[in-house]
């Protein structure tokens, strides 16, 4: 089964403080451990919210809004895609992530299309 692991940092630093090199190094080691265990399918970091764009559909028509989005309480900073044998294994890997204090990791299992009901699968076929 596959899980997406979302990194939700405590906050985005607007002061422009220098990057924490030790933190980057620790994360690189963690990603290497995931890779060596054969469970890492993908990993990427995301540009901060001030560079983000939202397209919303309040009345059915698209509306484009530039970031940052003050109403957003939790912002995703990065993600991993893991291939594991159980939810418990995904949790164990998440526990080992060297996140900064106050960050949250959310695990979401990725849907497997073959588990959808037959009529939905047929509808998805082009």
């Amino acid at each position: 089964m596959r899980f997406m692991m979302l990194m939700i940092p405590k906050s985005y630093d607007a002061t422009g403080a220098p990057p924490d090199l030790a933190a980057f190094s620790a994360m690189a080691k963690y990603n290497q451990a995931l890779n060596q265990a054969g469970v890492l399918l993908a990993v990427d970091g995301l540009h901060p919210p001030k560079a983000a764009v939202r397209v919303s559909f309040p009345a059915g028509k698209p509306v484009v809004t530039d970031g940052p989005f003050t109403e957003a309480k939790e912002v995703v900073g990065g993600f991993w895609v893991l291939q594991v044998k159980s939810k418990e294994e995904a949790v164990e890997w998440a526990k080992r992530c060297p996140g900064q204090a106050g960050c949250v990791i959310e695990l979401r299992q990725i849907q497997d299309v073959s588990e959808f009901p037959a009529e939905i699968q047929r509808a998805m076929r082009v």
Partner: protein
Amino acid sequence: MTVTEAHRAIHAVFKIESPRLIARIARITRDVGVAEELAQDALVTALEHWPRTGVPENPGAWLMATAKRRAIDEFRRNRRFDRKQDELGYQIESQAEARALDLDEAVDDEVGDDMLRLVFTSCHPVLSAEARVALTLRLLGGLTTEEIARAFLVPEPTIAQRIVRAKRTLAEQNVPFEVPRGSELAQRLASVLEVVYLIFNEGYSATIGDDWMRPALCEDALRLGRVLAGLAPQEPEVHGLVALMEIQASRSAARTSVDGEPILLLEQDRSRWDMLLIQRGLAALTRAEELGALSGPYALQAAIAACHARAKLAEDTDWQRIAALYALLMQLTPSPIVELNRAVAVSMAFGPAAGLRIVDALAVEPTLRSYHLLPSVRGDLLSKLGRQQEARAEFERAASLTRNARERDLLLSRAKASIEKD
């Protein structure tokens, strides 16, 4: 957290930690069977203590320390003085090891070496292929005996026996716990790759309605392959095999219809191919090419699979390249089946007459006598050349050779269509 939840969490930790645990302990005990028992003992201890004390901050280190302590006790208790003189060398080494155990956890490099030793030992050619598969899934894949049995459609006691006998054979044959070197390495590595690909193919052959542990074997094999690529990054065929498996696995969702019927590659909905796996496969293929220039069978097969993977539509397929790659594969691992595949690629690239020349040469092959795809391909080529009567005869022959009802119907309808075209 309930006791059951705690146990599940502990089992998940163990699944992550056990291969390295077994590998490290095997370096002390020189016996993978004993090493596994000691690792299991550590798990039992963890199941007893952790629900109360909580999972330790570094569970891997905790398990390692527990297992090591037992290993030293085992060693002190079981000093075998009846062993041959030259084996005393091993004993003295192990003694020094045992004394050095108070030091901190082994450096990453050493852990990698131990894992490689474990891989090569569980895939040792002194064991039968099925024994190697079961032992590898157990020691390196972390599968239980029951899971392996379900995956291979075999009773659990059979797998249990198979593993017991495999461990005993390794001990009786005094198989050393080491990474092969020099001229031995290539052959031993081939044995390892064969095991991994066997596991993958078992999973790939699973059909709808099978126990989910069967198709899960593809994931197990992929995981093993990726681990191996990390342990032996300089070996092109390791990356070649990983590339082949990633790309083949990328087609899982497109291979069967909603009703469970198989769909041929050229007819699959390519939007259902997993792009993440294809990208990973292409990246692994690049590594294989950089290291070995497509000089091995797995890299070549991966390169062929990559040609299909790169084509957004079936009609965009680079058949000339595929034909050339099959020609290279024929030089390395010649076989009638590879030649038949080459014939198909040649016909797609250069026209049916060119393909037919190759297929006709295969007519005398004894191994293909009952292989339905030979007359099926011949019929298709003859039909494209307008030789409909001969095509019909081939399709009917193919239909008589296949055991698959749906395939037989398809071939018979092609035979009928040939008469109508004539």
